[in-house]
């Protein structure tokens, strides 16, 4: 194992330990389990209302697209990605990292890896619980489990890419949260609905291109959300997301190694 890889691993271990105890983690964990709670409410409502049927797959698809993909992973990636550097500056703890025998790139990569791993597990747990509740009558169906696996994989890719992107923003910008909010809920939620090639300028486009075929239950409510999607091929989507992730992390490491950071007095 190279010296950089060893340092990344030690930083990863350090922050995986810390992130589990952080107060905000508890809040975001609760938010991540909201889909499961919503699924439970829908299920209970169906049991209490004779004749009301629940289209589990349709509800699940809606939750994945509108809540997890277009809201939750953006918020998580924004807050955790930008905080990779910002929390060290605000807490004035950066000194403990930059005066260790740890390459600066390892600080960024190790902390990024720790946060993303934790977020993926947290989001996957919420999604899986929602899936079990909504697919309670179809748990023996292998196709249903494939839908879960693919949905979770898309969310994981989203977290990897967006967190990398916001890590870069955090390294380069002072007001990275403001920029991130505008990017997430402006650009990323509008551009994918543009027709033609324009939508390919949004990361969200490639994530939506990878989602499993949507079960809308006929003319479902969320069909309009996909109305103008002209999906890229899975291979193109994965390559694009990988390139964005690698480029963002590479630039973040490069910039972090060259910039000086001063604490606000």
């Amino acid at each position, binding site marked *: 194992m190279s010296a950089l890889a060893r340092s990344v691993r030690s930083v990863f*271990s350090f922050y995986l330990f*810390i992130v589990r105890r952080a*107060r905000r983690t508890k809040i975001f964990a609760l938010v991540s389990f909201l889909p499961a709670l919503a699924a439970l409410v829908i299920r209970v409502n169906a049991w209490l209302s004779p004749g009301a049927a629940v289209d589990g797959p349709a509800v699940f698809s809606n939750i994945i697209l509108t809540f997890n993909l277009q809201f939750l992973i953006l918020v998580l990636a924004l807050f955790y990605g930008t905080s990779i550097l910002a929390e060290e500056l605000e807490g004035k703890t950066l*000194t403990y990292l930059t005066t*260790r025998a740890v390459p*600066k790139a390892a600080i960024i990569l190790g902390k990024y890896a720790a946060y993303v791993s934790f977020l993926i597990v947290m989001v996957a747990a919420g999604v899986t619980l929602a899936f079990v509740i909504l697919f309670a009558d179809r748990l023996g169906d292998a196709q249903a489990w494939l839908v879960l696996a693919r949905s979770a994989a898309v969310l994981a890719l989203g977290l990897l890419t967006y967190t990398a992107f916001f890590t870069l923003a955090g390294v380069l910008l002072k007001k990275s949260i403001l920029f991130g909010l505008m990017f997430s809920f402006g650009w990323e939620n509008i551009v994918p609905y543009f027709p033609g090639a324009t939508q390919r300028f949004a990361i969200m486009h490639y994530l939506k291109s990878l989602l499993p075929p949507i079960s809308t239950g006929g003319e479902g409510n969320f069909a309009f959300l996909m109305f103008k999607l002209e999906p890229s091929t899975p291979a193109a989507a994965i390559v694009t997301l990988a390139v964005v992730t690698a480029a963002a992390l590479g630039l973040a490491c490069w910039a972090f190694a060259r910039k000086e950071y001063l604490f606000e007095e």
Partner: protein
Amino acid sequence: MTAVIRADKLSKWYGNVLGLSDVSLEIGPGITGLLGPNGAGKSTFMKLVTGQLKPSLGRVEIFGRPIWNATGLFARIGFCPEQDAFYDELTGGEFVTRLLGLQGFSRTEAMARAEKALRFVELFAEKDRLLRGYSRGMRQRLKIAQTIAHDPEILILDEPLNGLDPLSKRKIIRLIRDLRDAGRTIIVSSHVLPEIEALTRSIVLLHQGKILAQGDIPYIRDLIDKHPHKISVKCADPRALASGLLEQPSVRAIQFGPEAETVVFETQDRDAFFGLLTRLIVENGQDIEEITSPDDNLQAVFDYLVGT
């Protein structure tokens, strides 16, 4: 002296603001005190020496190598930052152990080293307490524990005595002396002269980013002694005391303080003045409540030296 740390025409600007200007010095094993009022450039110098900042001009070398982005050198340096900042989710023991983990020590090795460092600063019994429950003195000692835990050859301590009660100060001064006796190269910054005097005789005076004076304590004291000192005496009959000292050549000026029982003497010869004062007190049976020196702080020393 074998120079462990060498600064050559070192300068640093923060935009248009000067942090350090044309500083050249060599530091070898033992304790070197870095003295200066707030904003003198002490922290800037320490950040440059620990590779947190890049010089605007000049060079800073540790063991003959430039420190900026020289990751390997950091294993040989321990830095105790000025700011009271920690990962409050951790306990004291976890803080030191996990930081050692960052240095690449195995879990077992890190735990053994953390235990040794925590015992050294007398915090081992508190190792399982969350950091947010630590007192200021404990947190300061914990910073020293993380500084020494990986057994570095150079220790850079930025205001390690700041804000501590006298008992904690004594403990930390003893710890730093023990580290000096163990052969470490130590730089300690402070803006309080007596604190540095308690640690070392070798000091560097910084003012407005420049070296104002450099040498041992007697040399600096000589510089200071060339300038008048103020000595305030609080007693039952200040006028009688003042009349007894009025004609003495060592007394330059006498001023009665805002409090009725206080008189302030200005002298250029402290030793002669204190000899006279003691004799007068004994001979006249003066009831003295307090003798203080308003100048016995570093700002006054700097004011003297820069002629303000």
